[in-house]
């Protein structure tokens, strides 16, 4: 069997480069899968379909990190409407104003240089 030509993470990143938040869907388990991988953790199936999220979600849990140096910042877990959860942060508001249950929308953050793009969120209402 020849080696796989690409990795789950590389596929995920190529979507982010295009401004898309990609996730996987398992037909065998009939549910979303995240983080991207080669085997569905709910069914063991290796048939995972790539889908692009509509980019809407709800804050599931949130914390404000107070680093020894620098400003406090947000880290949150976001439940996307398609049924998967990921770690991210909510931008454009004060970290202390990020609340559980808040509706948020995705945007891509490109740090530039060697760093890979990452999915971040902003309040949906804004």
């Amino acid at each position: 069997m020849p080696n796989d030509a690409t990795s789950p993470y590389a596929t995920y990143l190529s979507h982010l480069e295009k401004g898309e938040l990609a996730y996987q869907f398992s037909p065998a388990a009939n549910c979303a899968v995240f983080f991207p991988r080669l085997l569905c953790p709910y069914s063991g199936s290796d048939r995972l379909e790539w889908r692009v999220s509509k980019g809407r979600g709800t804050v599931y849990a949130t914390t404000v990190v107070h680093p020894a140096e620098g400003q406090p910042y947000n880290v949150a877990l976001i439940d996307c409407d398609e049924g998967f959860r990921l770690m991210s942060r909510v931008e454009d508001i004060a970290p202390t104003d990020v609340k559980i249950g808040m509706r948020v929308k995705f945007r891509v953050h490109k740090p530039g240089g060697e760093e890979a793009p990452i999915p971040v969120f902003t309040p949906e209402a804004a």
Partner: protein
Amino acid sequence: MEGLKRGAAAIVGVAESDLGQVAEGMSPMDLVAQGTQRALADCGLTLKDVDGLFCAMTQQRMSITSMIEYLGIAPKFIGSSMTGGSSFEFHVAQAVAAIEAGLCSVAVIGYGSTQRSVGRRAASQREVNPYETPFNPFLPTSAYALAASRHMHQYGTTREQLAEVAVAARKWAQLNPVAWEKKDLTVADVLKSRMISHPLSVRDCCLVTDGGGAMVITSAARAKSLKKAPAYILGCGHGITHMNISSMPDLTVTGAVEAGRAAYKMAKLSAKDMDVVELYDAFTINTILFLEDLGFCQKGEGGPFVSGGNIAPGGGLAVNTNGGGLSYCHPGMYGLLILIEGVRQLRGECGERQSKKHDTAMVHGNGGVLSAQASVILGTGATL
């Protein structure tokens, strides 16, 4: 645990190594050796009797191999499951299985850490996860903070209730001669201490100390002939729900539910039968989650349960009687030290902090970020 026999083996020797801040140049394996020598002396056995070895640590990649080299023995059976702080609760179940199967007869489980001396970063290298690391969670604290945020949201748990856990731990620590932090601590002190990852302040977080220890396990038959009263292993169970916090199915429910269920079933006991409770309190939210998940109170009622000194000395339930990871000692992976305290409580060796009733102990280990949960139920001869 399915397939293990209740009371087939016992913990017969326990000992801490040096704790807190150890002498300059002391290695993690020096601490394992100290613990091993002291634990063997505790039960009257020698290294020549040992034919099973278990070890896990963050500072030695091949810790069991290092332990064999250091001790100069050739064990018939070894184990080195690495589930973070709960590794040793897993090792207990594995040692029982190995002894029952005749693979070894006297097993030593060891641990050592010099994380305070060498620095946390050097002691425990963080892994890069492309789905979490870019957001700079301050791990492990931020993962526990996320769980706390969810518990507060769903059940109205307050920072004051989290602080009660730290205050109770400190009061127990004040009764433990070898505890690291003994200064008086109030709920107000916890609330105004430096914020690390909201809602957890520095006083909601475990200590960063050196330390370690060892314990000796053998068959129930052999245990009877040794120096001290055996702590029989009545029940073992585990539950692993995830590795990274973003993959934890429900941040308010841990694998302790499954771990406890399996351990109680094997022990033929329930939460109400437990005289002493030793929970892995890496953060104040842990104690609340584990009291709920192990059946000491209903889900969501952990906050009220720990309030008013209910888990402090003289309270309704003796929880974390050594002062916990919060105030006694937390050398990176703390799960071995709670087993040691459980055994000492059963023996009645705990002086001022001794629980009046001490025939049974629930010892519950936690590893990773609420990831790998494992329970061990210990009992005196009266419980067999």
